[in-house]
């Protein structure tokens, strides 16, 4: 059994945020196999979203 399958099994066994973690594992696998950066982009996207939301909230507080 390859490592991906083992990780998949472990995620399922752990039983917490299974869908999200399997999806993330799938993304990492795709990046690993293709040299892509889906996960990195997703990470950046979420970080930007937080930054933007923080900036908007900050602006609101200033007003």
């Amino acid at each position, binding site marked *: 059994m*390859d*490592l991906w399958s083992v*990780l998949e099994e*472990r995620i399922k066994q752990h039983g917490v945020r299974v869908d999200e*973690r399997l999806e*993330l*594992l799938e993304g*990492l696998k795709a990046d690993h196999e293709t040299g892509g950066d889906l996960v990195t982009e997703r990470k950046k996207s*979420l*970080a930007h979203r937080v930054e933007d939301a923080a900036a908007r909230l900050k602006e609101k507080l200033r007003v």
Partner: protein
Amino acid sequence: MKPTAITVSRFRGWKDEHRFALDASITSIIADNGRGKSSLLNAIEWCLYGAVVTKKDSGIDERQDWELRTRTEKGDAKPTCVELELDIAEGLVKIRRERAAAAKAREADPLTVEDPNGDVLFGEAAESWLIEAGIPDWETYRRAHCFHQEAARQRVVSTNERSAILAALLGLDDDLALRDTIESNQPSKLFAGIDKTLDALNDEAHRVLDLPRQRLGELERQAAEIGLESSQLSESNAKSIRSQLVARARDLADRLSLTTDLPDENDTVAVRTWASKWPATARSESPALASLDGHRRQASQLDLHIAKYEEEDGAWQETRSKLQQERQTGGDEAQRDAAVTTAETNLSGATNALQQNNATVKLLVDAKSAIKAASRSDECPVCETSVPGLEERLETTIERLRSDEFQALQAAEGDTRTALESAESARDALQKLVRDEATARGRVEEQRNKLREVLDIDESTAVHDVLAEAKKRREKVGTEITKLEGLASDRDQSIQDHQTNWGRLDLIEKWLSASEKAESSIDLSALHEWSEFNESLDELAGFGADLAFLGGLARDVQAERSTARAAEVNKALGKYYSLITQDDTAVLVNVHTTPQGISYDLVDASELPAVPVLNQAAINALSLAVLFAQSEAQASVNSWELVALDDPVQSLDSEKQKGLSQAIEELADSCSVLVATVPGQLSERIQDYVSKQRHIVTLGPWSQSDGASIESEVDQ
């Protein structure tokens, strides 16, 4: 699960159909290079895994230009075919893969599996059967049976490279790469960045919530500094100050004759706008004060000319006084001229008397000389009259005239000369005083004319009138200046009062605004932006937590798998490595786990570093030892029971080839071994020294017409 035979047709070097028995413990394929040894081993791979073992997809560099089908005559419609016969617990299974002669490049090569019951499975069902039966996948098979050839070509220098090649030999290099992928995506840096954002946001929230109160306190301190009590920080006081500001400005504007628009005192915005600009307006735009500088310049000019006039006039009065006094004491100009004339006459008389005395002496001297020449000392040489003692008398007279008389006449002449000089000096002094008085008078006249110019009056005005007029004018200008300076002072005071009151008003208004802000509470939870921020943060936190979880999981799993694989291999690795290398060192794979990652190395039984130099021969020996150890372990659990070795003697010297034959013999106790090798020490030792059942196949020369061929087959 033991392969017992393979049949090939039109597969790479093999053109016509050939069947090879694999049921012996050791099957040795002996042939020089280019006779089809590797093709036979490749046939097993293709039969089990299909097109993935060819070309670039195989993961083996040298298969880049692989040709699957044997080049045959045009019109040959027979397919490429490989059939593998497997002995499993239930009986014989035939696995067959074909490729049609006219198949296109991307066309799949159909697989069939005939089970012990004679039932035939096709396509996906056949593929599923392979998986369920426990046939290793291509990646596993490739690593086990092909990697020793690839590893033997590598040069290993660094510790990391040693670790990497061991990981690859153990089939754990993907675990390493995956771990790297997961680690490289760990959220620590991301969270550090987000922490900064949260800190900044927290600071802002803190500022928003606390600043108004801090601001209020600060404003109250500032108010105290300018004498404003807390009770004065009120709207009513602000209104009162606004009213005062406008009223005083109106009064000042009237006094300064300023035409300006003043704001409505109830319009707070207009008052704020106007109040900050009013001091500049009041200072620069007053017609009433515009003449102040002109008056000051005029006063300064008058002061200068009056002072100059008075100075010159004083000098003139002094000179004139001296002149009058000189005339009174020493006589006027006519008297002094007469005195000079008299002195000149006296001097002339004294001079004549002196000259006459000198002429007389000369005459007497001549007479005395004549008497002496005539030797008649008592007779006058002129009238020849006899004068007794004439010569003596002449001598006495000459003596007297030359001494006493001459001195008296000379003294008289000196006195008269001194008297003349004194008279001339007195006359010259008076003349100088006259000239000085005239010059001083001229200067006074000049200053008077300048005063006239300044006062703009004509020349008919009397001298004293010009000065008096100037002083009168100066007094008038001075009065005007005093009046204007009073107005300017009042203006400055008014502006100063305005600025003081404006400062107070500004402070009160800021305090009122800050007070209003401080009293209004912010309900963050009601803000849409707050909800959005929390949602995005939750999602990011979940994502980050998942990444961190996966990172931990990957670390744990990699460690477990590494340890398990090493334990599996280490059961027999030392044995096979010692056999192949003919070295007593029983090497073991050591897994070293740290928070930074996992590394692999070779140690001896005492866990001290072993095989310090990993040259090509050592790598080949090690890779074969790992393969044998893994195969032995897998065969023990009834898994795949065939080890295919394609030309395994690469880089191995004679001693190690001997050791390899012993290792193959040892491995044959656990599973079948298929060895393809060139004629040489290994093939000879398998043929002559190994005690296990052997099937020896010698391949003949490859020909264009027939392809690969079997020269001989012997069972021993």
